[in-house]
């Protein structure tokens, strides 16, 4: 700094200060319009967390525009005023300066400060998104080549086609895939997660504007990728309940246990199937012997756990229901038969096998 004071004021060249003023004005105008634009990305914010993301976009847009103006306009201006004039010597040389420590200090320090600010601000927005409220309604989105299915609590069968969400309801969406990696993107909500097979990613949204919004696959998933999309229908509570009822949803947790031919199951088939499908998460020991889920060795005869995890009595039918519909509770998420790709016949075999374990 002191250096700068003692230094004689160097002439920065013809029109330097006017150009600087021009840059400031232009950047100010652009920043103003960016910061005040209601839809900076060009899409309406149709629910949480879109407004937070838009705010960050406005801020970055203003900063970016300013930096872009500085670099571009100065570069062009220097290129014009310092171009070798026609009448100059064929090989005329320029001002011979090597560096200016003060200047270099500032153009290292200012960006650093700017980045600290940006990082803090982004982190704040990131926390907002992470803490977006959810869990009033929990939906499972399962993708396959090439489409989506949605599992709602208290719906026996997953819903194919459109996804419906009630207005102003904090919703948690668990996304996963059955085959390859897909994407789950709701542009109007500014939110996205990859749907990775064998992994459950979580989104939280709160729809605030009724309407129909696209859900788009953003990870390449094969020949059908380009056409892999569906629609999110955000509707009022009443309409949602109506739709929910049409889907066969009921208030009791009866679920679709029906149609499982429990009598026809065989122990050996169940044992094989258990090895393939269940043993990654469930041991055949007592409840306490957890891997991911509880041990299932004494599921029908465990004095320590007279009830099943969903609170129902340990009957073969109720166990079958859990295998069929999956379960979500404090101990974790049990995927549905749909996601495990096992048939009713398989379920019968598994239940009989588990029963045989409990007898020993």
């Amino acid at each position, binding site marked *: 700094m002191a250096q700068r004071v003692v230094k004689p004021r160097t002439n920065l060249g013809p029109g330097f200060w006017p150009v600087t003023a021009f840059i400031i004005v232009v950047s100010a105008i652009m920043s103003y319009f960016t910061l005040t634009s209601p839809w900076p990305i060009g899409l309406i914010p149709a629910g949480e967390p879109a407004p937070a993301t838009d705010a960050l976009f406005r801020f970055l847009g203003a900063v970016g525009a300013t930096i872009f103006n500085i670099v571009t306009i100065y570069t062009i201006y220097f290129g014009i005023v310092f171009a070798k004039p026609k009448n100059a010597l064929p090989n005329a040389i320029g001002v011979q300066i090597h560096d200016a420590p003060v200047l270099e200090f500032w153009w*290292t320090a200012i960006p650093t400060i700017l980045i600290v600010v940006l990082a803090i601000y982004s982190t704040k927005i990131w926390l907002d998104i992470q803490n977006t409220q959810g869990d009033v309604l929990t939906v499972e989105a399962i993708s396959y080549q090439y489409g989506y299915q949605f599992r709602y609590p208290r719906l026996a069968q997953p819903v194919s086609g459109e996804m419906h969400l009630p207005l102003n309801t904090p919703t948690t969406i668990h996304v996963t895939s059955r085959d390859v990696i897909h994407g789950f993107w709701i*542009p109007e909500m500014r939110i996205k997660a990859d749907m990775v097979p064998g992994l459950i990613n979580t989104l939280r949204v709160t729809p605030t504007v009724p309407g129909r919004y696209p859900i788009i696959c953003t990870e390449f998933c094969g020949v059908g990728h380009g056409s892999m999309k569906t629609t999110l229908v955000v509707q009022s509570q009443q309409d949602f309940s109506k739709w929910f009822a049409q889907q066969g949803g009921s208030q009791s947790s009866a679920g679709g246990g029906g149609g499982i031919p429990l009598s026809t199951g065989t122990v050996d088939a169940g044992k094989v199937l258990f090895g393939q499908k269940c043993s990654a998460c469930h041991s055949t020991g007592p409840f306490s012997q957890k891997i991911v889920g509880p041990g299932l060795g004494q599921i029908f005869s465990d004095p320590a756990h007279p009830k099943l995890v969903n609170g129902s009595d340990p009957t073969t039918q109720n166990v079958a229901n859990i295998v069929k519909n999956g379960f979500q509770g404090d101990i974790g998420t049990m995927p549905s038969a749909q996601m495990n790709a096992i048939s009713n016949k398989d379920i019968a075999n598994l239940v009989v096998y588990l029963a045989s374990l409990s007898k020993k």
Partner: protein
Amino acid sequence: MATLAPGVKTGPYHAVLDHIHPEPTSFIRKYIFSIDHKVIGYQYMITGGLFFLIAGLLAELIRTQLLSPNGAIVSAATYNQIYSMHGSAMVWMVIIPLVTGGFGNFVMPLQIGARDVAFPWLNLAAFWMFPVAGVILFSSFLWGAPDAGWTEYPPVSLQGPPGTSMWCVAIFLIGISSTLTGINFIVTIYKMRAPGMTLTRMPLFVWGQFGTAGLSFIATTALAGALLALFLERTFGVPFYDPKHGGSPVLWQHMFWFYSHPAVYIMILPVFGIISEVLPTFSRKPVFGYKMIAFSTVAIALLGFSVWAHHMFTSGMVPWLQLPFMIITMVIAVPTGIKIFSWMATLWGGSIHWTTPMLFATGFLITFTCGGLTGFFLAAVPLDYHEHGTYFVVAHLHYVLYGGSVMGLFAGIYYWWPKMTGRMYNEVLGYWHFWLTFIAFNGTFMPMHWLGLLGMPRRVALYDPQFQFWNVFATISSYVLAGSVLIFLYNFATSFRSGKIAGPNPWGARTLEWMISSPPPYYNYKKIPAVLATPYDFGNPLPYIGLEAAAGAEEATPTAASHPVPTL
């Protein structure tokens, strides 16, 4: 042996440099299996240039397909193969070989005053892996080319056609080649600089090559591991990535990006070097803040290793890990900004000679800045939740890789063309090439920004009709872009035949390679010169001792004696 002025710091001086190996006489040893770094450089450029044309053709196919929302020409399956091959070819068969193998081989030894690279035979071997890999890659079309994008995420790449395995082999091969080149260059730069050329007297292009070599010899073998695993899983069903057999698809993303993010810097650091040569030469001015530019090169190279997961914010890694990766990614903007500002300051107060390389260098400054800023939008995790996997990413990466690397490559080609061929190109055609490139480039890729923001995902053969206008706009611009490349080809084809003789130093540049005849003689330097300072001090006498310069080379460089130094 060159004698040094008293009291001059010396770099590593090697008697090896004094030694001259006889020029081979047979055609094969001279042009096909030559161990001369210049010939190998030409070979890299010709091969890479051919692949560039093929990859560009694929790009035009992509754009043509997107003329219509329902796909104008080919089926979705074919389209996937086309864009996957376009990406793979541009990254591994064009840009990386050209910046390291091409320019690195031709220019770097000349600039450090060496007669060849440290391991000429290794250099030869590394080159010949390149065309082989290219042939394997492109011939995979015959068996069904890889179709999961240049990133080839499993599990979908496990379902891919047989060509995907050939892709693994080809990229593995080019990876080995680039590792060997990296090792070769590090040893060359570290051990074979001319006497007196301390690290802080190296031309900045050499600094760029140094950083790139470091990146490629560390990171590339990680990619080799990832590719080997993918190949094994595809061929022998060895489970690494397939969740059905207990693997993890995210593992591939970590291993792949651990290489492929540094690869971005492998592709851009030498181009930074080219820009740092072109700007001072045509501003007739010392490059501004030499030390800071050199330092930022190293900083970028180091930081480049610790940001790979910013490609995976949506793929389900531990949430809190996203923050450090976001912050380090943003920090990389600081050294990059230092470079940009230093280059602008180099323009300031210069006496700017508007030649074609200068135009491309300044054009690079603008487009690359734009690409860097959109990089910020992607680095901020919350925005990445919106932009990941959309055309916004496509726009960003083309601004960095085409507006950055490729335009820098054009600058370098125009700049060193006289040195390589001994002939000048047609400046007017050069202007046409630049302006068409600059306008058409922005016309092609600028719309992709808002296409992505508004909801167009990348890698789609079909898209929502509402996006058709801007897609057609981009496609038409891309045709103009292709046309500009044709101008470039015509220009150099004619220059070969009828270009006017360039002489040793047509630009009045001051780095060592301009002190010898063009094209350089087989030995580069009859006597190895001693170096007293950075080359960029226009207005000072040339800082070389004991240099037997070609006739007219030194006279061509302006000095204070011949030219008054202006003051503002």
